[in-house]
Every structure is written in C-alpha cells, then in structure tokens.
C-alpha cells in the first residue's frame, strides 16, 4: 500500500522533472511561449482551444501557445500547485473563484489585472455578477470563463401539473409539495449521495440560508464551531425530510448518475443537482418536461434567502509571468463572439454578455446562467470553496442526517470531533 503511494509521488517528481527538461529545450528558441494550464475540458473543447491558439499565433508572430491539459482530479489537487511551483510555470491557468483563488492570491500566484481589463476593454465583456469571488479590495484577479449553479431543485413538470402543485417559494410550500407527491405514491425527491457531494451541495446551501453565509463560511474555515443552535436547527429541517419519507430510502447507496436516471425515468418528482443536468436530460430524456426552482426561502433564516449556490471559474494570469499582455490578448480572443460561437458549438455555455447564443442554447441553461449572473449572493459549495477535508467531514454529517442515521446534535458532535485535529 504505502509503496505505491510514495511510488507514485516519486513518479510525479520524476515526471515533472522530465517535463521540465522538455520545456527547457523548446524555450531555447526565439519564440516566446505562452503557457496555459487547465484540467482537461474534453476532446471537443480541446479542439476549440487549439483552434483559438492557432488564430492567436498567426495574429501574434513570435509567440507560441503551449497547453497543459491535465486530468481534472489531478489538476484540482496536486497538478496545478506542482505546475505553479515548477520551472516552467503556466502564464495563464484555470482556477475556481472564491476561496481557491484567494489562496492563489495569498501565495503570490495571481496577478492583479484590474488596469489591463479596463484598458483592453476585456473587462466590459462580462456582467458584473460574473466577477463574484474574483475581486479582493476592488482589485480583479480573474477573467471569467464559465459558471455552474451547483444546486437547484429540478422537478418533473408533468407530475407537478397533475397534482396541481406550483413551484414552491417557501420551505413550508416545499414540504407541502413533497407531501402531495408522496401521497400519490411517488418518491418526492431523489438524491444520489454515494460520493457525499450531491447532498453536500444541496444541504450546504440550506445551511448557509439558515445559519447565514458568514457563519457557514467561518465554520468551514474552522473559525467558528459547527456545534451551534443554528446548525442544529438547519439539520432538523433535513432530518424531517428523511423522517417523513420525502427522500429516496437508498440516498446514500446510489451515485449521482443513478439518481439522475431515476429522475429522468420519471420515478421521482424532484432532483436537487447542478446545472449540468440540463444537457444530460436533453440527451437522455428529451420528452421529459423539466423545470427548476432555487432552494425555497426558509423563514427565520439568517442568510440571504435569494442566494444561489454555485461556482464561477476563469483564467488567472500568473503574477510571476512576464507575458501578462499576451495573456490578456489571448483571453480577449477567447472571449470574442467568434470564439464563443465555437465554444457553444462544442457544448459550452459562454459567460460573456454577448457570447451566449440565446436562440440555440437550451432555455433552461440560459435561465440557470442568468440565475447565477443575477444572484444577490453566491454561496460556495463546501467541496470547491473550502478545505476538502473539512468539506468531507461536513458532507459526512449531512449524509448521516439526511439518511436518518444520526440526530442533528449527534452528527454535529461527531463532525466537531473529526475536524478537531485540523484546528492548529
């Protein structure tokens, strides 16, 4: 066991050294190299990136664009830090807005690009809301490329119409809707929480609504305890969902995709998941009439009841790079309407104000896009905004409460014990 862990560590080190050597030789030429790093966006998207690179190279003689596409998981964990601390660090790299970006800024890897964005006009290509989590003290550190609402509650319109249920606006209406669906013999809500992030996202949003965004964020950064009356109160709402039989009984045994299928096959009326369900739904169940609503408002909650949970991401210019202007120019090309059209064709939802092809993008995707852009408050999901270890502990507690295994107080007590060694 331990052999292969360190073995792979060693491999990684060797790998990066070898990669480093390769790059050194290439940069020995006259060309300047613009290095861009990201998690692999899939073949169709890579083709678009390559196309944009070719265009950029022909418009800027003397500059070569060099991509590093890594496996998504690797990039998110060891990959990017390795690249940044390596010899040939990327000049432009993909990152998630919020906590992760703030860490890069603190570590000195993110350049303040406020003036460049203004002067080049690139900054005006995005709505103000698209910069959520990308600015610190009025300085902008990121060029937005995409946004995902990580949780809304999708529902089966046909079922809702038959039962005469409207989109619930409040938690009480939501519970009433669940009750009506349950009475008709159908599972009201399906969640596939095998990997913990699904309910983790949904209930994370609920937690932030009840305890307030600051308390939620501070708790996840271990600055405030999880064991508080507010958290207990929030989890009590969750416990109720299980006790009343509103969620599927195999919630912690099936994966997110299995749960997607249950919903798309019409076996459950509601499915709390992220915006990525839309393309899946169009492909797998084109005849399904699907709607969505944001988490209903919770009376007495201390958070912003209009908040949206989601992640925005974008490209960061490395503060240590000497190619800032080239990087900005590249992103300008990337954000142009022509590129956006290519990106749309490859399945992406461009985030520029004019790039979104409103006629050829699914209506639900557009509405979700707008929901995020117009959100008064954007809440970061536990597992992308914060330490993954704390997030896992919180998500475990969530799974225990929503699966009926532990009472809110017990789950929170155990959560406190789990994160205790991390408070140093």
């Amino acid at each position, binding site marked *: 066991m331990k052999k292969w862990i360190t073995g792979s560590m060693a491999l990684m080190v060797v790998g990066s050294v070898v990669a480093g050597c390769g790059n050194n030789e290439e940069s020995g030429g006259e060309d300047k190299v613009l290095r861009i790093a990201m998690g692999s966006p899939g073949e169709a998207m890579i083709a678009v990136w390559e196309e944009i690179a070719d265009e950029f190279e022909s418009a800027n003689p003397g500059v070569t664009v060099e991509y590093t596409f890594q496996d998504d998981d690797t990039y998110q964990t060891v990959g990017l830090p390795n690249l940044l601390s390596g010899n040939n660090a990327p000049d432009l790299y993909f990152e998630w807005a919020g906590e992760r970006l703030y860490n890069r800024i603190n570590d000195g890897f993110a350049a303040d690009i406020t003036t460049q964005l203004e002067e080049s006009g690139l900054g005006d290509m995005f709505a103000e809301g698209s910069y959520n989590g990308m600015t610190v003290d009025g300085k902008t550190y990121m060029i937005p490329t995409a946004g995902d609402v990580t949780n809304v509650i999708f529902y089966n319109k046909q079922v809702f119409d038959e039962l005469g249920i409207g989109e619930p606006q409040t938690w009480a209406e939501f519970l009433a809707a669940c009750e009506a669906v349950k009475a008709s013999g159908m599972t009201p809500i399906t969640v596939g929480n095998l990997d913990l992030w699904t309910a983790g996202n949904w209930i994370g949003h609920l937690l932030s609504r009840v305890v307030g965004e600051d308390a939620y964020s501070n708790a996840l950064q271990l600055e405030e305890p999880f064991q508080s009356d507010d958290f207990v109160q929030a989890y009590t709402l969750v416990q109720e969902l299980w006790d009343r039989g509103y969620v599927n009984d*195999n919630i912690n*045994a099936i994966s997110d995709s299995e749960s997607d299928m249950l919903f798309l096959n019409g076996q459950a009326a509601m499915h709390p998941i992220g915006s990525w369900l839309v393309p899946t739904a169009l492909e797998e169940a084109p005849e399904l009439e699907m709607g969505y609503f944001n988490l209903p408002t919770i009376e007495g909650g201390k958070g912003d009841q209009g908040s949206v949970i989601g992640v925005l991401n974008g490209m960061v210019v490395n503060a240590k790079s000497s190619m800032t202007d080239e990087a900005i120019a590249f992103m300008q090309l990337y954000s142009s309407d022509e590129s956006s059209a290519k990106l749309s064709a490859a399945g992406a939802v461009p985030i520029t104000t004019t790039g979104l092809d409103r006629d050829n993008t699914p209506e639900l995707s557009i509405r979700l896009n707008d929901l995020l852009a117009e959100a008064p408050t954007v809440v970061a999901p536990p597992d992308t905004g914060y330490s993954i*270890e704390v997030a896992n502990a919180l998500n475990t507690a969530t799974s225990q409460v929503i699966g009926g295994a532990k009472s809110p107080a017990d789950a929170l007590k155990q959560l406190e014990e789990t994160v205790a060694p991390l408070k140093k």
Partner: protein
Amino acid sequence: MLRKASPYLFALPAVLVFAFTILVPIVMTFAFSFYDWNGYGEMRFIGLDNYDRALHDRIYLSSYTHIFIYIAATVVLEVLVGLGLAGLITMGRKGSSLFRVALFTPVMLPMIVVSFLWRFVYNSDFGLINTVLRAVGLDSWTQVWLGNPDTALLAICFVSGWVYAGFYMTIFYSGIQRISKDVYESAYLDGAHEGHIFFRIKVPMIRGLVKTGIMLCVLTGFQSFDLFYVMTNGGPYNSTEIVPTYLVKVVFSHMSTGYGSALAVILTLVIAALGLLANKLGRKGDALEY
C-alpha cells in the same frame, strides 16, 4: 581492482532499480510520517503528532474493525466454503467438472466488473435480490443493502466469497486429487461414507494447503481495495471504510501526505506483527499422523 569490483558492478543496475522503486519509497514514507505535508508545499516537522492523531482517529480505528470483520467473514465464505466445494466436486459424481468450471468463472472476471455487477444486484429499486424478494411476497425483507450500515459490510463480504470461493476450491481440488485412490478404497471397504471421507481423509491430508489458504486470505484481506472502492467507497457513514480506502481519501483527496504516510506505516506494522504471530502459531504440530 576492477576484478574485485566487477561482481558489484554487475549487480549495480538491479540494486539501483530495487532501491529506487522499493527501498527509497519505504524509507521516504517513514520520513514523511513525521511531517505535516500536503505533497508539494512546505514540509513542517511535527514529530509524533501524526501518530497521535491516528490513534485518536475514529474513522481510522473503525476501519481496522471493519477489515477484521471482513477477514473473519472471508475466511469462512472463501476458504471454508471453498474447502466444502472442493470436497463436493471430488466426490466423482456426474457433472462435477461443469460445477468446477462454473464456480471458478467469477475468479476470472476483473474485480471492477464484479463490483459493478453486484452493485446492480444489490440495488434497492431494481436489483435482483429485492426484485426476487418482492416477487415471492417477502417485501418486508427488502433492504437498501449497500445504504444500510448494518448490511453494507456483510454484503461486500458475500461478494468477496462469491468470487474467491472458486479460487480456494481450485487450490484444494488439486490437493485432493493428489491423494491416492487406495486410501478411499480401503475406507469404503471399512464402511466409511462421504462425510467420513471428507472430514477424516480429504481435509486432514491437505491440512497444509488449508493453512496456507487461510494465511493467504488473511494477508490479502489487508490488500482489498477495488471491491470496497467501487461498491461503497467506505460509505454509508464510514461503515465500510477500510484502511486502504481511507488512505486514498487522506492522501489524494485531503492532500495530507504526511498524515497518510503515518497511517501507512502503522498499517505495515500491524501486518508485520500479524505475519510474525501467524508464523509462530503455524510452527506447532505440523506433523500429520494416520
């Protein structure tokens, strides 16, 4: 001079490869375990803190309980069931070769395939088990097999038995085949029936193999990973968390390489201690008299 050095020079490449792939990683893991380190950033020496944390880590400690339950269950479901099956297929009845092949088939399937297959079998909505239970009117027996902390671990043990019983059966089968036919013949003449032959002749005469089988089962128990990873990944509520799945979470998801190294070192010590213990116990009474 060169003559003296030449044997060492010949051995050098092999030694270097061994050192780089096995020796250095082991030593490094041991060294990492004293640091607070995320795998790439700054390393901070923290002495025995990681070990102290491990001994108070609820999930880590319970993962040992789970692995011991798993090992105990698989010794029965794999080795003992395998032994019983080997006894049955060596009775020389018609069609036993068909059973031999059928029972060995699961061993040939990749573990990942088996894991996914059984996830469908256990699925509470459309899985084979619950469907059958409902069909025969035993609705109250249906379970969310992999989502219930009381049944998840046993469900995994059963799959492990389903796969490896055939493997141990094959080993024991070959052992039993080597027993001389004369022994059976004289036993039959003395009026022995199949039960006697199994317990008094077949099992005692392959006792060495059975011991090896149990040892193999215990030690490979610590290496199981794929089945747990695919079927539950430690869930629900860490009730099927075993050391390897937890290690992967700590090192590759939590990015606590230092802490993970300490966990790995402790696991190694536990396995080594068990190996020594088994070795001591195994020395006694190896002689077989009949």
